[in-house]
């Protein structure tokens, strides 16, 4: 039995190298945590697809069970769940985020 929301989420994650499930849109985040991740990605000049969960209640709930992670934002790189705002910030500060993007062949300000 397939779960249509999970299938849709898989398609969204596969649609771009870097996908951020967030509250609001990148130009106008509706949550400080989402805004922090947008700022980090923008600072690294990483192209990403922002998915506004506030405008899609099915994805908003579905993404939490999909990743077994209770909160938004959630960042995916090449289909892999990287973490929420705290993890992304820690990785950015340690230089690990830029290294990971470069390893995956994704263009950023660090490469």
């Amino acid at each position, binding site marked *: 039995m397939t779960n249509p929301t999970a299938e849709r989420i898989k398609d969204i994650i596969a649609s771009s190298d870097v996908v951020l499930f967030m509250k609001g849109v990148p130009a106008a985040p*509706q*949550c*400080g*945590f989402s805004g922090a991740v947008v700022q980090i990605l923008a600072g690294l000049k990483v192209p990403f697809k922002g998915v506004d969960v506030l405008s899609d209640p099915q994805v908003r709930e579905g993404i939490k069970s999909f990743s077994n992670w209770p909160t938004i934002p959630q960042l995916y790189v090449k289909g892999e*769940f*990287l973490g929420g*705002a705290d*993890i992304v910030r*820690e990785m950015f500060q340690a230089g690990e985020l830029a290294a990971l993007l470069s390893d995956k062949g994704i263009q950023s300000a660090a490469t």
Partner: protein
Amino acid sequence: MAMDGTEIERLLKQAFPDAQIAVVDLRGDGDHYGARVASASFVGKSRIQQHKMVYDALQGQMGGALHALALETAVPAQNLDAGATGPAFAARPQLHSISGD
């Protein structure tokens, strides 16, 4: 809906009896917390696994009654040789006052 900081600390202590735990009410509104947890049980675990362990310890409150928790996990310095990832707890910078929505 807010959650008491002492309740967060109690749940964390229950799940991580060995841990150094700091819970801060970031805005003083009982709704936006920051927590640092350093426990030997994080040894060898990825950041995602560590954060999931903390969310599990909060027994489903995260994303529910507990609206925002800026989380920082670490392995105590004396366990660092055991193959842990990430820098020692004591060497971590101060928690950022990041806010939820």
